[in-house]
């Protein structure tokens, strides 16, 4: 509650929260808001030559190549993007933090094995890995989220690892040891709380990269399968018509950017609020 209040007091933070809140509301209320079903191909949605319609009074944001209402597709796409963004990113952070913190705190053989595995994953081309994983499992929304998590946890692990290493060498950790604190206690009470900032930063920045990676995968045909709309696959479905129908690329792009921006602003504000040494500074 305290955090929320402090968040609302900051203009940028409050704005970010508003953007996120609106996206979430739209995603939940999609069936009520959307004027058409997202995969309904409308005859009047195309010109006589079969070209998509620009924004007009019937189709507020225009139509796509198959004559579907872009506004409705964006609204339903919010569901996909949010699920991917939150689930995939959450899973990536969970795996990455766990690997990083354990490797950084215990070092030694366990740490070496974990970090060499991380390096291996990092050296592996992310897309190739995603393609392999997507080929093994049948593509679906949840599998795509999992695949993205498998690719994205690596960077998180690297950063959390190096932060844990430097934290573990600080004097106050030595002081805790001399007081008799168990390793688990040190890890949970004195190291993990310090990693919250990085996790929040990753959580917010990661959402934008995640949404984009999902778009890439969708484009390659191994992401969210059409006709289910996601902001990413809307862009890639329509990108070849960029010159004649720019709204088909710009509008979903704008949706991605504003959601990412919203998360970034909230993340920045959270970092300021949660760091006691920065209290009161903006």
């Amino acid at each position, binding site marked *: 509650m305290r955090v929320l209040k402090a968040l609302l007091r900051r203009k940028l933070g409050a704005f970010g929260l508003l953007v996120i809140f609106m996206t979430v509301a739209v995603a939940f209320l999609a069936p009520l808001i959307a004027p058409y079903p997202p995969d309904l191909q409308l005859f009047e949605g195309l010109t006589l030559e079969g070209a998509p319609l620009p924004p007009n009074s019937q189709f507020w944001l225009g139509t796509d190549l198959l004559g579907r209402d872009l506004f409705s597709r964006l609204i339903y796409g919010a569901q996909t993007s949010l699920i991917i963004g939150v689930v995939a990113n959450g899973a990536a952070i969970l795996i990455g933090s766990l690997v990083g913190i354990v490797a950084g705190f215990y070092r030694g053989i366990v740490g070496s094995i974990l970090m060499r595995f991380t390096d291996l994953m990092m050296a592996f081309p992310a897309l190739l890995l995603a393609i392999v994983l997507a080929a093994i499992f049948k593509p679906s929304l949840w599998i795509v989220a999992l695949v993205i998590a498998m690719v994205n946890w690596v960077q998180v692990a690297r950063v959390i690892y190096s932060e844990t290493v430097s934290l573990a060498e600080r004097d106050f950790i030595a002081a805790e*040891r*001399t007081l*008799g*604190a168990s390793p688990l206690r040190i890890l949970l009470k004195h190291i993990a709380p310090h990693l919250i900032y990085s996790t929040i930063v990753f959580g917010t920045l990661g959402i934008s990269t995640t949404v984009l990676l999902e778009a890439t995968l969708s484009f390659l045909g191994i992401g969210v399968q059409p006709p289910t709309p996601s902001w990413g696959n809307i862009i890639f479905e329509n990108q070849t018509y960029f010159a004649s129908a720019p709204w088909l690329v710009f509008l979903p792009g704008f949706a991605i950017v504003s959601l990412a921006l919203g998360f970034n602003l909230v993340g920045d504000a959270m970092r300021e609020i949660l760091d006691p040494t920065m209290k009161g500074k903006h």
Partner: protein
Amino acid sequence: MTYQQNHHPVLEVRNLITRVATPAGAKTVLDNVSFTLQAEETLCLAGESGSGKSVTALSIMGLLPPSARTTQGEILLEGRNLLDLSDRQMQKIRGGDIAMIFQEPMTSLNPVMTIGRQLKEAISIHQDVYGKEADAKALRALDAVRISESKRRMVQYPHELSGGMRQRVMIAMALSCNPKVLIADEPTTALDVTIQAQILTLMNELKKDFQTSIILITHDMGVVAEMADRVAVMNSGRIIEAQEVKKLFQAPSEAYTRALLKAIPRLGSMKDTPSEAKQLTPEGKPQTPVLEVRDLTVRFDINGGLLNRPVSRVHAVEKLSFDLFPGETLALVGESGCGKSTIGKSLVSLISAKGTIKIDGQEVTGLSAQELLPVRRKIQMVFQDPYAALDPRMTVGDLVGEPLVIHKLAHGRELIDRVENLFNRVGLPADAMARHPHEFSGGQRQRICIARALSLSPKIIVADESVSALDVSVQAQVLDLLQELQQELGLSYLFISHDMAVVEQVCHRVAVMLLGEIVECGPRDIVFSNPQHPYTKQLLDAVPIADPTVRRKERFLPQGEVPSPVRSLDYKPEIRSFNNLGQGHFVREYA
């Protein structure tokens, strides 16, 4: 006094006011500061942290951070007001007419450029000489600061030099353009005392050679007494008192100066107080030591090469033995790298060591974490930097209470009561408990650390440089607190320090360390009045004395660098025996 003969001002600072923008509004950090620097004079700006000494220097150099601004006043360098000059003109002045050296020479030197190139660069910028000629000038500058093997230093990188040599290089660079004014901001604070003595002597000699005026910024009144012609004492942005140095030390006119001078630990101040022997009970029976250390050895391998194999070895502590008795303070003194901190860490089982450590009769080496837990209650540590030793995200109340929670000694209301008591005991208000460490001053933080160490009612406290990061007045208060606690609770202290004057004030016995071994050990009064080992004598001689009437000239000056404990892998430490001089005074054999 030479400076009185050629009496003309080089630099005049008049009514300087500098403000810094803070979230809480503009704050005046320099309030009407005025002083005059005469030709070939050393003016010391003395004061505690936050008094505005460094801001004064940065204002003169025009190097204030963006948030700070000089709003009023004049800085006249031979009649020219520096505050009116453009950035370009100031660049000419900086390093040309006014040069500055800083506390930490490693961060002031570029780590990827050789010493020679950095020197040449400084010379080329200001003197318009290049190539061979600049080379020759650089070499001459290095020779001027009396650095050993100056030719070889030219092609070395900063990390290849010791701290003292780096500071010499910084001085060489500063003096290479014959500045009129040299500003030295705590130039010896990061150095060991023997090296400090060398650098201070060097600065005094160079002042004459180069006919430079020096503004020396320092918190150390010993250094002031050693160096200054005149002193300006600063406090909260104002010059409290400016005096000729002898007058200032003999008859300070302001109360603040008197308090400051009174707070400095002076070597020799305990000469007439015999140290209590704690090896015997008040009834005269021999005491059982609360801590017995026998043949403690700690070595670290330094890995390197392609295969990351050990290439050399640090002999941090070698076969070291000592006892600590109930209610006694044993001081471990020595310079950096002598292994004193390593001993502290191995006693609280932060690093593993060979040998025997018996705490209250119980052997602790080789115990598991579980078995160690009850022993930890008996020995606690207070670290050097109190801010680094406190988890910044926790409230200080939680921090002080945490040991009680870990050891399951108290919970709920009782826990809060006990923490409150501890706060009261160390002189902090109980309502401070809900605050975070960064809201306290350095001295208060150290009190919090002491309260935390006390929470487990230990018998021994290892104080690792626990007061060296504090200002002298605060230092005196913390030392008083430690002594009160010792008398009240019968604590034993292992007091690890590099500062001979502080050590003399607090300890009953002292052990002088060199290269991981004790070279001399005995009761405080005997070791300080009659040191035997040459190294002990050297350490005592190097301490700057806070009395301007006794200056270095007549005193012995230590030579060379602080030796390093890094040895080759096949190094076998010599086994040397100790001579017993009676009354518990032991001296290791020396050549």
